[in-house]
């Protein structure tokens, strides 16, 4: 079940990211990044409200806090990437961020949630990080 769900999530996430790649190809990424994100998230918000209404999911205080925390961390991450790109090469920034993020998430998972990775899990993460680094290096 996990594989199915995560693969579907990865495909949707990848399709969403295809927009950024297209924006870059149109040479609009540098000057219009946040306007694009505002519209991108905005359409996403409209699309998200429909299942929320269907599920009659009236947000509790915890839901609102979690949603705002997700929004803040996501945007801070984006702003920091944009700022880092002013000083560093894109291949360094993107591969470094993804590899670092996975490593830190692994540590948090092990320490805070006692999630243990087996040898296959470690091998999978090493192969995945190597794949991302190769992709960002071109």
């Amino acid at each position, binding site marked *: 079940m996990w594989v199915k*769900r995560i693969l579907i999530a*990865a*495909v*949707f*996430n*990848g399709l*969403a*990211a*295809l*927009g950024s*790649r*297209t924006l870059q190809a149109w040479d*609009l990424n540098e*000057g*219009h*990044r*946040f*306007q694009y*994100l*505002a*519209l991108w*998230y905005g*359409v*996403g*918000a409209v*699309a*998200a409200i429909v299942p*929320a209404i*269907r599920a009659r999911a*009236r*947000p509790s205080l915890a*839901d*609102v806090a*979690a*949603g*705002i*925390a*997700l*929004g803040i*961390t*996501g945007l801070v991450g984006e*702003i*920091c*990437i944009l*700022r*880092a790109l002013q000083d560093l090469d894109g291949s360094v920034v993107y591969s470094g*961020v*993804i590899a670092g993020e996975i490593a830190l998430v692994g540590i948090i998972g092990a320490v805070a949630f006692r999630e243990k*990775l*087996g*040898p*296959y*899990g470690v091998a999978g*993460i090493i*192969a995945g990080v190597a*794949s*991302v680094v*190769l992709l960002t*290096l*071109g």
Partner: protein
Amino acid sequence: LIGYAFMLLSIVSFAALHTIYRITGRRKCRVEAVNAVFLSFASAAACVVGAVLQPDGFIVEPEMRIRFVLLAAVTGAMVPLGVLFYMAALKVGKMAPSAMALGLSIIVPIFGSILVFGERLTPSRAAAICLALISIVFLWLDKRGSERSGRDVG
């Protein structure tokens, strides 16, 4: 050095994002409601940040305007679906493999670049795609192994 500091801050932010997803996915939060609040807030915040950091960015060349809006609309509609499935995956899986698998979604824009923009499939990209597939197989084997041995923490 400042570039690396911002890179580090970005790593911490995104790791925090995954951690919040993990907590929200396993607690009694309503994922649909969290998703709607998250995207509404992010949209409004991106608008404010854009006004501060890129005030000229609100003006898009007239010939690109429709394309710009359509691109954001079509790809933006994928975001809540990706988030919902990711949160659903975190309910039954571990954080690091889930974040890794999501990170591998970078392959989709790479395929898109090859198909839509006619970019070349270089040997390093082909090797990266093979490694990504190997990674997914390993992560799946880990998940299967942990289910059998009861190593999964729920």
